[in-house]
């Protein structure tokens, strides 16, 4: 029996697990964003590449520094902050000055994530917190859009990107209106095919709806994303838009335009689905999606800004704990099915 005594260890059951790991899930979300990222660099050139790199680096470094500063082991290895950084970069305009990118990243991670207690505790999506901060602090820079596929976009760096901190950035080109701005101010509706393929201007990662959906399908297939959230957002936006279009087709665009323009695809697939800041029950996720969908349409149609996805998601994040309070699973053997 000596052989047995020497080696036996004690642990409480279950003695097996299905092998899923939080860092693996996070890494996969990061990978799912890579096609969108590659397209963003292809469409907007070196400016976009720099914005994305600085955004990711600012978030990762901020988390690392904050962990070191508070004497905790660095949590950079769980990949969650890399997703935040990359997503944050993808929501920014392609010629945003890099110092602004950096400041927003630090703010998003420090205030949006670390102050709440780090991974698992953040009430809001930290990437959107960073972006919302920039939107409030630098409204002009945050609404300057360069046209995609510009000549020579790989040869030189846009001068605005390298602007000195707190200096007025100089832009190489005039701003090019986004499809949503055209919708709002000119009542012009871009075509669905153009939007899906990413031929319009906008934030670096939001333009190509097809690639975003592809990333989402990959994550859903690997059971790393709750498909109910994007499905609920899409259905709500489509239904509400369709009703308004029936009522007045000259003022209101169709569902396809609304789904594929602006940040809706990126927001619905990659931002609203942040597991931490969304409800935990499936029923709650449907309700959360409906809320986001209604808010998006309301802000876009009647708000002061052409785009409302960011605020819609942040507001829904705030409501999410209340949805969890309201909707809990019906415990086995209680309620209508008992007995």
């Amino acid at each position, binding site marked *: 029996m000596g052989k047995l005594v020497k080696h036996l260890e004690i642990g409480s059951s279950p*003695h*097996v697990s299905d092998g899923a790991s939080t860092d693996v899930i996070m890494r996969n979300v990061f990978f799912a964003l890579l096609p969108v990222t590659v397209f963003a660099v292809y469409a907007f050139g070196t400016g976009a590449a720099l914005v994305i790199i600085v955004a990711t680096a600012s978030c990762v470094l901020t988390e690392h520094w904050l962990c070191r500063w508070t004497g905790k082991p660095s949590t950079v290895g769980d990949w969650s902050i890399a997703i935040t950084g990359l997503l944050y970069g993808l929501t920014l305009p392609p010629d945003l000055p890099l110092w602004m990118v950096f400041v927003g990243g630090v703010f998003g991670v420090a205030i949006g994530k670390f102050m709440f207690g*780090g991974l698992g505790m953040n009430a809001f999506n930290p990437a959107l917190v960073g972006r919302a901060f920039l939107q409030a602090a630098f409204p002009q820079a945050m609404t300057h859009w360069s046209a995609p596929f510009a000549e020579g976009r790989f040869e030189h760096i846009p001068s605005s990107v390298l602007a000195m901190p707190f200096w007025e950035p100089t832009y190489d080109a005039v701003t090019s209106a986004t499809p949503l701005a055209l919708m709002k101010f000119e009542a012009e509706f871009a075509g669905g095919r153009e939007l899906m393929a990413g031929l319009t201007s906008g934030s670096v990662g939001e333009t190509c709806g097809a690639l975003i959906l592809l990333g989402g399908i990959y994550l859903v297939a690997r059971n790393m994303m709750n498909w109910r959230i994007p499905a609920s957002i899409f259905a709500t936006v489509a239904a509400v838009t369709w009703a308004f279009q029936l009522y007045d087709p000259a003022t209101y665009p169709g569902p396809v335009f609304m789904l594929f323009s602006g940040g809706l695809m990126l927001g619905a697939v990659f931002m609203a689905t942040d597991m931490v800041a969304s409800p935990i029950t499936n029923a709650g996720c449907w309700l959360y999606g409906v809320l986001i969908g209604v808010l998006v349409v309301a802000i876009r149609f009647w708000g002061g800004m052409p785009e409302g996805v960011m605020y819609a998601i942040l507001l829904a994040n705030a409501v999410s704990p209340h949805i969890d309070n309201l909707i809990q699973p019906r415990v086995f053997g209680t309620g209508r099915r008992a007995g």
Partner: protein
Amino acid sequence: MLDLFRKDTFRHGVHPPEMKDDTAEMAIRQFPFAPVLIVPLSQHLGKPAKAVVREGQEVVRGQTIAVPDGFMSVAMHAPASGLVRRITLAPGIMGTKVESIYIEPYPASTQDIDDGEPCGLDATPDEIITAIQNAGIVGLGGAAFPTHVKLKPPEGKHLDTLFINGVECEPYLTTDYRVMLEQTEDVFAGIRYLLRATGASEVIIAIEANKQDAAERFRTTCPDDLPVSVRVSPVKYPQGAEKMIFSALIDREVPSGGLPADIGVICCNVATTAEIGRLLPRGRGIQERVITIGGPGVRKKGNYRIPIGTPVGFALEQCDPVDDISRVFMGGPMMGPTVSNLDIPITKGTSGITAFTTAETGGSTGHKKVYPCIGCARCVEACPVFLNPSQLGILAKNEEYEQMAESWHLMDCFECGACTYVCPSHIPLVQYFRMAKKMARKLSAA
């Protein structure tokens, strides 16, 4: 979501690898006697039995060595002919010490068994219930709940359907499967006793789809006069829990905090049923049971009829353990309690011994880095009783035991471990809940 469209299964649950191929086709073999057998007086839920032998006394295999102490207790029988060496405290699987009878079998001890007073099918229900109690029969599936107690429903409740549980959803275990194939007649005989005792009018044998030939055996050999239907469910854990069987097959839920009798049903493990059918006609008691010894930690895997009281260490030695054996547990890997001492004996509730090597235990929850809960909801999707393990886990960490019990249905958790199995952050959820349930009971009693 898919479950809504799938018949004959419960909602939620998980799919651990079944791992039954190594032992499924191995016929039941008799296990040798250990040099000393340790028979605990409390192998069941309820009151310990009262020893009726004294130290130094000679006992015959099958002889009653302890009698039930009240209704919530069952008898114990000598697993071998030999000498009672000591009656003293011995280590038990739950980590506590249990009053136990040490029996030293005679070197020439044979497999002959002492027969007692037989109980025929013409006996009254109460006589059958008493016979089952005196035969020391408890739930052999693992819970070890005294079977005769279940057969007597509370006043005013009527039992209409008898479920025979042949699901065996724990990975690695194949004892019930072998019993179904090799003791089919005993199962039918047991069903007759159970029908007579309970007055139920219908029998449903529940089996999972990885045991189709057992289902086929039951269908082809079922006597015409027995009201038996065999139902096969898709493989899913924890389908073997009785509440899950009822919900899977007749779509009725046992009320929270209630009993199966509340919905007019009773569930009996298939091996328990076979023992009733085998023992009662001869007036014998349980002095051995069928277990699976398996897992990567042993080479001579198999299904064995093993004397009650055999120390785990002796059982493993007979099965040729590998060098880097690292963790041994009773039953399957989802719910099996870990063996902390190799003198712990096989009891009536032991359905198997599974041995893991370092390769497998490296993958268990305790060895992995714990991340914060990210709210992925996998545990919510896995929990068969629809709790919110994520929320319960956070509360447990903050030691909010009363709140867990009062507002979050902690007491409905039956500790299947599905939540811990799926948690990507490797949070020891079910482990928290086991402790929290104990603490909540203590707090509410105080």
